[in-house]
């Protein structure tokens, strides 16, 4: 009979690798964001729209995209001329720090402003795993229903920005915008919420202003 006190964080291995990635990004003055959503919310469509706009604004970026089995998202972004690295997660439902570390090693940091990670579509697991990002973005769509923030509070709590896509579909659904936004504010009162439609392009410029501000902050803090 015996007892050994351990008191060790189970996520330690992942978190240590994530700290290493964060340090690499800091040393290079590169901002990193982690976009998390349900499957089909429109992350790839969003990047197809926002990517060329970012480029036009002179932002130098790389996209890391995660998918369980296919390279469909990477192919779509490659066709749009966007710089993309694919991670296949196999049977894992999230991207962890080890996978991101490998992808980051492939990226040239010289002159880079931003790394965008498009996580695997899932509102639970990706919120658990620190990948060294500066900001998590909680990405939703009106077709999913307005109760998702209440059902997945950890993601909302951990996020610094919330995007709600497919606003063009609101009139065809029972989506209640104020219920959705109030639920978010109960969990994370300070978070900014952006309404967009990837179909019409409406609202996407709001993301550009937000991200440019974050890039500026990162460069200033790193200097």
């Amino acid at each position, binding site marked *: 009979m015996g007892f050994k006190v351990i008191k060790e964080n189970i996520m330690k291995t992942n978190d240590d690798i994530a700290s290493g990635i964060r340090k690499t990004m800091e040393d290079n003055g590169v901002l990193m964001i982690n976009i998390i959503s349900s499957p089909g919310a429109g992350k790839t469509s969003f990047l197809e729209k926002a990517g060329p706009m970012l480029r036009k604004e002179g932002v130098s970026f790389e996209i890391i995209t995660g998918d369980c089995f296919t390279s469909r998202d990477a192919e779509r972004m490659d066709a749009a001329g966007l710089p993309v690295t694919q991670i296949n997660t196999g049977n894992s*439902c999230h991207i962890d720090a080890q996978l991101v570390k490998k992808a980051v090693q492939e990226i040239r940091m010289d002159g880079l402003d931003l790394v965008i990670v498009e996580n695997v579509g899932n509102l639970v697991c990706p919120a658990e795993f620190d990948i060294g990002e500066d900001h998590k973005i909680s990405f939703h769509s009106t077709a999913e229903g307005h109760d998702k923030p209440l059902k997945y509070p950890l993601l909302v709590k951990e996020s610094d920005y919330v995007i709600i896509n497919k606003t063009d579909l609101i009139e065809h659904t029972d989506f209640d915008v104020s219920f959705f936004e109030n639920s978010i504010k109960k969990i994370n009162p300070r978070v900014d919420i952006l309404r967009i439609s990837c179909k019409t392009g409406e609202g996407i410029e709001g993301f550009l202003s937000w991200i440019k501000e974050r890039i500026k902050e990162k460069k200033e803090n790193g200097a």
Partner: protein
Amino acid sequence: MHELAIARSMVSLLDKEVSCPEVGRVRNIYLEVGILRYIVPEILETCFKNIPKNEKLNGARIVIETVPVRIICSECGFETEVTANEFICGRCSGREVEMRSGKEFNIRGIEW
């Protein structure tokens, strides 16, 4: 199914802890898990059972202590236990709060 990745992390930590000779065959593994972590104990048990590990860990039971979400109000200083999706002060209804617990994910210890 983050339980599989989590069970793997547990095994890699525990393999080291049980390697010293004074630790016998482990009966119980005590975890402390915040309610925001969405762990399904039964799935975690199954994943843990099926991962190759030090034989001292075979057959060990996972005992989970669930930690509630507690917040401290930045305005009035009151501490409240809240549900996972309403971070609102129980005294003044303030929303500027600091989370004190609810995100834990620790191995507290092992018993043999």
